[in-house]
């Protein structure tokens, strides 16, 4: 069942439809918010707030296939609002150990090295200006197309292109300095 149908049924008060929608999207929203906020705990709080807002606005939703952009616009606005209050991004290293399993072709040392690389990349992403980070995370990590990112961020496709280009340039400079790029 597509997202628009689930939203229409949610608007009619159908709990099962809303539950299905939450379970379909909560991981994506959580991952996005972790990258935006740098804190699993805060991200988990905002996942709840995001879906409570989705529920509250279900009656007004006229997405016509753009649910993903609409959802991430809500989550992004909440994240930016939280960051404004916090002023300075506090990156809390999240523990992924219980979720990560070393690949069959990789030994423990490779795995450790990979985790260190991931950590450095996450920190570099976290250091980006908020809008660059938002555009990059939505595009690269959440798989949104430029057009969808533009809708989620209420900007234009060239605007998104520019944000992502600048984000990539900053990351290249940051990570090359840390020896992650040749």
């Amino acid at each position: 069942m597509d997202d628009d149908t689930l939203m229409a049924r949610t608007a009619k008060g159908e709990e099962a439809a809303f539950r299905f929608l939450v379970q379909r999207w909560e991981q994506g929203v959580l991952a996005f918010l972790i990258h935006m906020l740098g804190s699993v705990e805060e991200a988990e709080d905002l996942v709840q707030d995001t879906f409570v807002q989705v529920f509250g606005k279900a009656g007004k939703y006229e997405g016509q296939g753009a649910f993903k952009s609409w959802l991430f616009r809500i989550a992004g606005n909440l994240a930016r609002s939280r960051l404004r209050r916090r002023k300075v991004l506090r990156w809390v290293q999240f523990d992924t150990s219980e979720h990560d399993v070393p690949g069959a072709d990789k030994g423990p040392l490779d795995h450790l090295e990979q985790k260190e690389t991931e950590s450095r990349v996450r920190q570099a992403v976290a250091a980006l200006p908020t809008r660059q980070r938002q555009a990059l995370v939505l595009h690269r990590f959440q798989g949104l197309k430029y057009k969808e990112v533009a809708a989620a961020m209420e900007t234009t496709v060239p605007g998104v292109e520019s944000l992502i280009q600048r984000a990539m340039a900053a990351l290249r400079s940051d990570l090359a300095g840390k020896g992650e790029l040749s």
Partner: protein
Amino acid sequence: MKHVTKKLQAFVAGELSGAERQMVSDHLGQCPACAAQEVETRQLWDLLGEATAPSFDQSDSAWPEIQARTFGRQEGTLLYGGGLWSKAGIAGAALAAGLALAILLPGNGAADKALADESGASWGSSFWLDEQSDAGLSEMWLALADEGSDS
């Protein structure tokens, strides 16, 4: 030869249309500078792909909390006057209204005495409840207040 530097990011991300993609691809075949930059861009793009946030299993779902804040709230609320009033809120309002009326409305000696006897307090005969008051009204509001505080 016009370089395609500005198109490389979109090229690597698969965001270019067919014609644009072909144009960039053709250029990369002839321009070592742009080709080197394309490799660099792709390397960073792939590196980013390894740094996605961890996935969580369904047992970590936030659904119970979300449900409590959406459908759970609906069950425990009444639509009243265009806004959501919780049962506790209505009970509190009833208690406050009861007390306010008990203060404002005249009391009754017999009812006040009964109340004073039951609670062991002397406020039933105080200025809060007038000796000349209507028994029915004060009893009704006090009963409502009790009901509100119980719920």
